[in-house]
């Protein structure tokens, strides 16, 4: 596992205030250069796209829910109604500088295929997902004996859209398996603040509530 760890560029958080934007959105937005072309897959109500467009990024979005799309279009965002599992194949290779999959991977039917498509149509991918290895999750399963529910993942097992949960460790393994290069990685705590940097993977996997990864194509791809 070779992860290049760098100092976090957190200037944006101070300027825009953590209350207005989600912490993981600010982290993602800071990774994207001005003028870049970005596709946000599963863009929800378009909050991240709006943040990006405000920073001079050429943003596009795909969203599954009709309400989400209509909100986005009503905000003037270039968002289309579509499904990450079926519609990414329609985008040409290298169409974007960055493709973002924010808190959506666990809701796709074929996470591996989706991940491969992200790095086909984008030169880089930014993927964030809830870490099922988070200690509160483990505790609920171990002690409570029931499927975990948290503030950020409040759905019950029978009505959750999240069908493919994974841990940070699982995700790193998948990246290795399909020859995806991890350029940078973060684990965020329950307030979406990054955990301390030079921690071992097991620590992130235990104490990170979500993982955020900046990915690019491996040498073999």
């Amino acid at each position, binding site marked *: 596992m070779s992860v290049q760890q760098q100092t976090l560029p957190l200037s944006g958080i101070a300027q825009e205030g953590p209350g207005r934007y989600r912490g993981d959105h600010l982290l993602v937005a800071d990774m994207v250069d001005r003028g870049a072309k970005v596709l946000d897959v599963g863009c929800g109500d378009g909050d991240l796209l709006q943040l990006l467009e405000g920073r001079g990024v050429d943003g596009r979005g795909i969203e599954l829910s009709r309400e989400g*799309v209509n909100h986005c279009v*009503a905000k*003037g965002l270039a968002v*289309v109604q*579509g499904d990450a599992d079926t519609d990414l194949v*329609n*985008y040409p290779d290298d169409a974007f500088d960055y493709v973002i999959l924010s808190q959506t991977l666990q809701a796709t039917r074929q996470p591996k295929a989706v991940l491969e498509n992200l790095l086909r149509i984008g030169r880089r991918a930014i993927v964030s997902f809830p870490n099922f290895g988070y200690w509160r999750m483990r505790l609920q399963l171990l002690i409570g004996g029931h499927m975990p529910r948290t503030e950020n993942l409040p759905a019950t097992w029978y009505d959750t859209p999240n069908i493919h949960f994974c841990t940070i460790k699982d995700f790193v393994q998948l990246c290795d398996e399909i020859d995806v290069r991890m350029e940078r990685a973060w684990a965020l705590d329950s307030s979406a603040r990054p955990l301390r940097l030079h921690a071992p993977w097991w620590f992130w996997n235990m104490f990170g509530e979500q993982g955020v990864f900046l990915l690019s194509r491996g040498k073999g791809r």
Partner: protein
Amino acid sequence: MVRVRPIKSPAAQAEERAHEADHPTSLVAAFGVDQPLSLDCGVDLAPFQIAYQTYGTLNAERSNAILVCHALTGDQHVATVHPVTGRAGWWDTMVGPGKPIDTDRFFVICPNVIGSCMGSSGPASTNPATGAPYGLDFPVITIPDMVRAQAMLIDRLGIATLFSVVGGSMGGMQVLQWTAAYPDRVFSAFAIACATRHSAQNIAFHELGRQAVMADPEWRHGRYAEERTQPHRGLAVARMAAHITYLSDAALHRKFGRRMQDRELPTFSFDADFQVESYLRYQGSSFVERFDANSYLYLTRAMDYFDIAGDHDGVLAQAFRGIKTRFCVVSFTSDWLFPTSESRALVHALNASNARVSFAEIETDKGHDAFLLDVPEFLDIARAFLQSAGKARGLKGN
């Protein structure tokens, strides 16, 4: 309940229509023999004219013009009273002061399409060579022909780039044709309830309509005007069949169900016992008042021939390569004439061409006709799309 209006005699209606076909109650741009319209069928049409309406004011930069393209049986009276029927403009939910297409901000141009019967050259127009209506001597026209004629009108109005081209159904086909043929002249495009090609099922419905017209003995091989007859029964049947395709099962059920028309019990006859029958008969009879039967043949044919991919080696994305136009595509859940799958195919092609596109599917049971009706979610999207495009264009008032 269906409103019953006194209907003028078919002869009086025909006279009024014939007058509108040559001398419309609107602006007219006449093109002489020196400016022919070259048609896809190989004919150079000259002279010809385009009837159109405008609303609002063109700004000094000439950057706020919106072209509204009408559907199959629409006309230039998008937000003005129809001269024959006396009814309000056909899109007054969308176009007007303070409406999504705000005539206080935009200069709106709505031309009658070539082949129609409201003042732009078509089969009901007088053929200058004979002094009689063209009838079937009018050349068969296509959607690209309509758009070519509109481009000549826009040239004459001194507008280099349209801020937006907007339309639903056949109007949406024109929007897409505009972007494919003149990508640099269209800043934004709003294509509603349409497709990049007419489906086999839709061609089949059109053929049904045309056969109904042509089966009417009063049609006289298209020479009904000279023979002083009217194929109004055939045209009414065509309209009734088409009207069903504009609605949805759910909308028909909601509006009429199996309710009876002014009676409690069936009459055991072929009277219009059911409200839905009465409604359809009314739709048919009010349509023939305002529309020319031959125009109906020509315009349905134009839609049948429409296939953008076919004009680009079968690859739809090829038509939009490198396009800078901002697109908004909208479909409606209950539209089975131009279902969402058609819009999705368009969106995929636009994505493949790297175009900037928004696409929303609106939930409604109102069927294909939803784009003409008061559907707030749809109107909100129209407003927002034009607003953000206006911002990108640097229009004032954003």
